[in-house]
C-alpha cells in the first residue's frame, strides 16, 4: 500500500437540556419558526448570557467517562464571523481552557483489534440558527429556534486511518453520549453531527498531508461514503501531479461526491478572544465526585458482563449494548424470564424488525419487556412453539393483548396430547402411501427428507400447534415399524 489515510473527527453533540445554553428558551425540536428564540438568542442590545448549570454537568460527565482532564477553571470565548443565522456576529464557544481535555476511547478496527483514539478536547458552544435558501424567492429565511442550543464539540486527534475506523469511533461516541443521557443521538434531527478532516500521505512520509474538511454529514452511511470518496479524490489528484488545497467541502449524498464550498477564505480568521460577558467557570472536586456517581454501567462493561455472566456470544452482546434502550429492555425482560439467549434472539430478531419496519423505537414500542418475557416463558413451558410465538408476537404488536389472552382467543395452545397428535400422524401416513413406500426403501439421508415432508403435512393439519418433538417421535415410530 502506497498511501496512508489520516482522519480526525469533530462531533457536535447537542446536549439534552430543557433550556438553551445561555437563555431560558426551550430547546424542543420542531417548534414553529422563531417561537423559541428570546432576546438573548436574538442578540438584542443589552442582554447578557447566563450559563445553564446542566450544560456544565453534562460536559463534565462526558469528560469523566473518557478519562479526560477537567480543569478547575474553564473560560468562554467569542468566535467572530458574520452570517445571518448568527445574530450577534459571534458564536460563544471555548478556545483556551476548554472544559474537557485529553481523553481517549478504545475502538475496534476491521481486523477486530482494539485501538485507542485520543480525544484532544471537548468544548461547549452555542448552536447557530437555521438558514433556508431557495424557498422564499430572492430571500433567505432565518429560523432562530436552534440558536443558542447547547453543543458539546468533541475533537479527536487524527488517529483514524480509514473510513471504517472513523465509523467505529463515531458509533462508540454515539452510544456513550446516549448511555450518559447527555444527548439523544438523533441524527435526523441534527442532535449528533460530524465534520471530518481527511488527508492522505505517502506511507513513509512523516508529515501530514494537506487536509480538507468535509461538512454536512448526518448519517453513518454518508460519513463512510464521503470519506472514501474524498480519499480517492485526493490520491487521484496527487498522482496526477496536482496539489491538495486546504478547503471545506460539502458532501452530496445524491451524487456521492464532495465539492468545495464557495470559499470564504478570510472568513476563517475567527479572531477568538475571551468573552467579557461571561465569568470563568469554576469546577470543584465535589462537583466531579457527585457527577461521577451518576455515570451508569457503560457499554463496554455491560458487554463484558453479558458475555461473562449470561453466557451470550460477543455478537449478541455487542448488538444488545450499543443502544442503552435496547440494553435496558433486555435486562428488564430477563427479570421476567431467565433465558438470555432466547430473549436476545427475540429482541434482535422479531422485535427489532418490527420496530424498524414501523419506524418506532423502544420508547413507543407496543410490546413491553414484561409482555415479551411472559411470552418467552410460554415457549419455555411448551404452551406454544417458537413458530406459533411469531403469531402471538405479531398480535401483541398489534395491541391484541398479552400472550396468554392471545393464545386463548386464537386457540393457539400447543397440542401435547399424544392421542390427538397420533390422529394427525395417522392421517398424514394414510394420505401419502407413495411416500411411505419410498421411505421404507430409502437410505438414511433420503429418509430424513421424507420425515421433513411428513412433519410438514402434520403441522399443516394441526395448524402449527402440534408439539414438534412429539410429532417427530411418533412419526418415526410408525414409519420404522
Amino acid at each position, binding site marked *: 500500500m502506497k498511501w496512508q489515510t489520516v482522519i480526525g473527527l469533530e462531533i457536535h453533540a447537542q446536549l439534552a*437540556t*430543557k*433550556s438553551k445554553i445561555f*437563555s*431560558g*428558551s*426551550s430547546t424542543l425540536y420542531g417548534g*414553529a*419558526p*422563531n*417561537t*423559541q*428564540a*428570546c*432576546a438573548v438568542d*436574538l442578540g*438584542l442590545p443589552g442582554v447578557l448570557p*447566563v*450559563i*445553564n*448549570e*446542566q*450544560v*456544565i454537568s453534562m460536559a463534565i460527565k462526558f469528560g469523566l467517562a473518557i478519562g479526560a482532564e477537567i480543569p478547575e*477553571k474553564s*473560560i468562554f470565548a467569542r468566535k*467572530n464571523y*458574520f*452570517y*445571518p443565522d448568527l445574530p450577534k456576529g459571534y458564536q460563544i464557544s471555548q478556545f*483556551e*481552557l476548554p472544559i474537557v481535555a485529553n481523553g481517549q476511547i478504545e475502538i475496534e478496527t476491521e481486523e477486530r483489534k482494539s485501538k485507542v483514539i485520543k480525544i484532544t478536547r471537548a468544548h461547549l458552544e452555542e448552536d447557530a440558527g437555521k*438558514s*433556508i*435558501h431557495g424557498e*422564499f424567492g*430572492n*430571500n*433567505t*429565511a*432565518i*429560523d*432562530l429556534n436552534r440558536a443558542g442550543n447547547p453543543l458539546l464539540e468533541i475533537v479527536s486527534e487524527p488517529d483514524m486511518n480509514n473510513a471504517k475506523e472513523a465509523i467505529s469511533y463515531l458509533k462508540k461516541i454515539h452510544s456513550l453520549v446516549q448511555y450518559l443521557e447527555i444527548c439523544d443521538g438523533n441524527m435526523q434531527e441534527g442532535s449528533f453531527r460530524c465534520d471530518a478532516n481527511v488527508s492522505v500521505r505517502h506511507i513513509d512520509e512523516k508529515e501530514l498531508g494537506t487536509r480538507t474538511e468535509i461538512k454536512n454529514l448526518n448519517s453513518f452511511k454518508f460519513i463512510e461514503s464521503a470519506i472514501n470518496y474524498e480519499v480517492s479524490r485526493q490520491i487521484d489528484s496527487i498522482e496526477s501531479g496536482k496539489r491538495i488545497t486546504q478547503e471545506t467541502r460539502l458532501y452530496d449524498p445524491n451524487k456521492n461526491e464532495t465539492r468545495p*464550498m*464557495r470559499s470564504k477564505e*478570510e*472568513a476563517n*480568521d475567527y*479572531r477568538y478572544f*475571551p468573552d*467579557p460577558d*461571561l*465569568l*470563568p*467557570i*469554576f469546577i470543584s472536586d465535589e462537583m466531579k465526585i457527585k457527577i461521577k456517581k451518576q455515570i451508569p454501567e457503560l457499554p463496554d462493561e455491560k458487554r463484558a458482563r453479558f458475555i461473562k455472566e449470561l453466557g451470550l456470544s460477543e455478537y449478541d452482546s455487542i448488538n444488545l449494548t450499543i443502544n442503552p434502550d435496547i440494553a435496558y429492555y433486555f435486562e428488564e425482560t430477563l427479570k421476567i424470564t431467565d433465558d438470555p439467549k432466547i430473549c436476545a434472539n427475540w429482541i434482535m430478531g422479531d422485535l427489532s424488525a418490527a420496530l424498524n419496519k414501523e419506524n418506532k423505537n423502544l420508547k413507543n414500542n407496543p410490546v413491553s419487556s414484561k409482555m415479551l418475557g411472559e411470552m418467552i416463558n410460554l415457549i419455555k413451558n411448551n404452551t406454544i412453539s417458537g413458530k406459533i410465538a411469531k403469531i402471538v408476537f405479531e398480535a401483541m404488536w398489534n395491541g391484541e393483548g398479552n400472550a396468554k389472552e392471545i393464545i386463548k382467543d386464537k386457540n393457539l395452545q400447543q397440542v401435547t396430547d399424544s392421542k390427538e397428535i397420533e390422529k394427525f400422524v395417522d392421517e398424514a401416513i394414510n394420505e401419502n402411501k407413495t411416500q411411505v413406500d419410498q421411505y421404507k426403501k430409502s437410505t438414511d439421508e433420503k429418509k430424513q427428507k421424507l420425515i421433513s415432508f411428513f412433519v410438514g403435512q402434520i403441522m399443516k393439519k394441526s395448524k402449527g400447534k402440534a408439539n414438534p418433538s412429539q410429532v417427530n417421535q411418533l412419526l418415526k415410530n410408525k414409519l420404522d415399524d
Partner: protein
Amino acid sequence: MSIDKSEVQKIALLARLAIGDEDITSISKELTDIVELIKTMNSVDTTDIEPLAHPLELFSRLRTDEVTETDQRENFQANSAETKDGYYLVPKVIE
C-alpha cells in the same frame, strides 16, 4: 510592526466596516500605535503570572435548567425589516 494599508482593508472586511480610501492612512497609523503599545506591555516579564480571562476575579453563577421564556415572536418581529410565515427574511445568501 506596522499595520499597513492591505492589513487595514482586511480587518475592515472581517468587521464588515466600510472604510473610505481617504481614512486608511490615519487608521493605519492609529492601529500601528496600538500594536506598539501592546509591544511595550509585552516587554514586562509576566512569567508565573496567570493569564487574566476576566477583569473581575469572580466565577460565574450558574442558572437552573428551566424554560423561563415564552413566545414573543410577534413583539420581536415588529422591529424586523422583513418577515414571512414566522421567519426573518434577509437578502439571499448564496452558498
